[in-house]
């Protein structure tokens, strides 16, 4: 259920605030050797190891996988994924090893949980390429060290949340909003913080009047407790909340379900989706035309994995770098199509996005002065 629009432009910028200043010299050496050993599409085998969730979590893992699949179709490479038994470094290393030993030498791993595993792997399997999303390799001491066969990719979730927040505020003008997060992990938190800043921005600059109560911002504590998601959403709606921003995997599923049911009953209940465009998850009429998903705070994980594979095939694998997919490269934001947003909302949002790209609006990626 993800309306994948092809990436506008694949090459993202290198973030300035990069913890590791990348070394130019090896960069060249790397790329030159790359040219030499430029793999042809057919013999590149791209493998993925899933994070906690399943491959079809309608969110993080799925996004990554869809990017790889798209690459598989459009660029004609072999793809495969493995689901580790547990979530320990050992489990991850084991599956990475399994991929490597079966010839998958381009390995994509979504989630900061892979940081230490990739740290070990990038030295252990020097002839393999690694892409880690939402994190960067380190040995457990947070001293990041991205080797030349590895790319670390971050997303500016806060910007994504910000845009979604602005859009929501503009569309609903006034009323209460809520946030349901899964576990209190950086990505989820940044969505939350960005969303709040976006709403605040709209209130001060765009004349909306949305409120977010402390008790309506919760981290449920898991990504899989579906009933809890529904019940939390129900409580918020009953307390007069108009729209809930869900960055919570399976918990969000429950919330969306509640949104759908309320709309079927003719009540107003909006959900703001996350990661991918979740519009299709929220259909509540027979012929799938109306959805309770107001919009989604998207982060184009699929583009990330796709672009890296493409780069590899072009011999431009940006090894050793730490990239950030942000608003400037449309790595984050809201979906291109938003049937539930009025045209002027879309117009205003587009304008805000432009200002963000121009650096006129900056969004903080920390929770200072914000709720939770």
């Amino acid at each position, binding site marked *: 259920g993800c309306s994948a629009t092809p990436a506008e432009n694949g090459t993202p910028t290198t973030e300035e605030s990069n913890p590791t200043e990348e070394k130019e010299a090896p960069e060249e050496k790397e790329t030159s050797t790359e040219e030499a050993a430029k793999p042809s599409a057919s013999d590149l085998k791209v*493998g993925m190891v899933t994070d*906690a969730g399943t491959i079809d979590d309608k969110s993080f893992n799925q996004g990554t996988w869809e990017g790889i699949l798209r690459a598989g179709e459009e660029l004609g490479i072999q793809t*495969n994924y*493995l*689901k*580790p*038994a*547990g*979530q*320990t*470094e*050992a489990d991850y*290393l*084991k*599956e990475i*090893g*399994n*991929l490597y*030993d*079966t010839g*998958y030498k381009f390995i994509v791993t979504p989630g*900061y*949980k892979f940081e*230490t595993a990739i740290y070990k792997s990038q030295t*252990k399997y020097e002839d393999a390429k690694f892409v880690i999303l939402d994190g960067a390799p380190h040995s*457990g001491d*947070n001293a990041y060290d991205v080797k030349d066969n590895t790319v670390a990719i971050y997303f500016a979730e806060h910007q994504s949340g910000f845009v979604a927040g602005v859009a929501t505020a503009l569309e609903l003008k006034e009323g209460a909003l809520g946030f349901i997060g899964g*576990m*209190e*992990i*950086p990505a989820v*938190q940044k969505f939350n913080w960005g969303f709040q800043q976006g709403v605040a921005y709209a209130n001060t600059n765009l004349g909306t009047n949305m409120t977010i109560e402390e008790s309506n911002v919760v981290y449920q*504590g*898991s990504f899989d407790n579906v009933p809890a998601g529904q019940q939390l959403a129900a409580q918020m709606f009953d307390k007069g909340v108009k729209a809930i921003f869900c960055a919570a995997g399976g918990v969000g599923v429950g919330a969306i379900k509640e949104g759908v049911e309320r709309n079927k009953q003719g009540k107003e209940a909006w959900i703001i989706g996350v990661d991918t465009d979740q519009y299709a998850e929220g259909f509540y009429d027979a012929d799938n035309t109306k959805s309770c998903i107001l919009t989604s705070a998207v982060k184009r994980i699929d583009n990330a994995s796709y672009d890296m594979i493409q780069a590899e095939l072009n011999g431009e694998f940006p090894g050793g770098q730490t990239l950030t997919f942000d608003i400037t490269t449309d790595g984050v934001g809201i979906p291109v199509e938003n049937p539930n947003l009025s045209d002027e909302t879309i117009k205003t949002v587009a304008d805000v996005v432009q200002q963000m790209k121009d650096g006129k609006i900056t969004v903080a990626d920390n929770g200072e002065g914000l709720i939770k």
Partner: protein
Amino acid sequence: MHRYKKLIVSLISIFLGLLVGTLFMMVTGHNPISGFIYLVQGGLKSVERVGNTIATATPLILTGLSVAFAFRTGLFNIGAPGQMLFGGFCATAIGLTFPTLPAFILVPIMVITGMLGGAVWGIVPGLLKAKFNVHEVVSSIMMNWIANWVVYYAVKARFTGTMETESKLLTPNATLHANWISNLFQGSYINLGIFIAILAVIIIAFILNKTTFGYQLKSVGFNRYAAEYAGISVNKNIILSMMIAGGLAGLAGVVQYAGNANCIQLGVIPSQGFDGIAVALLGANTPIGSLLAALFFGLLYSGRGFMTAATKIPPEIADTIIATIIYFAATSVLIESWLDRIIKKRHEKRLDVKTNNQLETQKEDE
């Protein structure tokens, strides 16, 4: 004779389980032969993989031992996951609180606290069973969830590190890692935990077969009324048994979280706890049996990823095989009776001779 019979039963169960696995592979259009070949290769192909297989098996040995031990006292310890989690948490907590202590002091303390933590979690169902005759299955299931949330909030409150879903990472001196052994296995993550497991197997086997304590426990397990009649305190033994079972599961937690891993994940109930049931069953509830069964499952678990990578057979096939094996182990009655018939045939003759003699002596009476 009995041992021997049990062994055959287990082997037949395994065979049937693999058979069912084969069927599923074929039905879903995969080639079972290559499937199994890759499965085994994945577990044993290289020295490193052998090491990983052993490491995977290590916590299973201990949870299996835990379940088996309780079983010998007539208790079904389905609470191993909770005990493992809580024990592992206690050990990790120590490790994170005193990171500066030298390993040779810190690690033993962690091992002991882990064991105690598990024991504490195991005692509760034991007490409820002994004092109120609450079925240990239900109570230990509740204890599993309680453990999950208690650990969740305890870690969040005191031990969160950079990753919000995990505790702080243990420093190397606070883990069972040892370079010499992982180098021995070409960088496998195998660790000293395996020695703890083997030691536990030996000790438990010794307790069960050679000591008066084991005699008591088994008496209670086989026939609590006879035990009571003979002056053996049933309640005391039930509690002790659950405590030890919990302790073993706690050790599993130590080798898992401070050996195979170096931190605790939030909101994850360790699957090794449940697999312990399977291990114990397949191991006929004997320590040695648990050891072997654990190694077998370890092979399946560490091999399946390789299989999936090479053949795209969904990894769930491994769990399906295991579950099927358990079912057949549970219904071993069928296999046993079949074996009995064979054994009987062999004994028939001798029996006949005996009975004839008895009849003669009676005739003389008359």
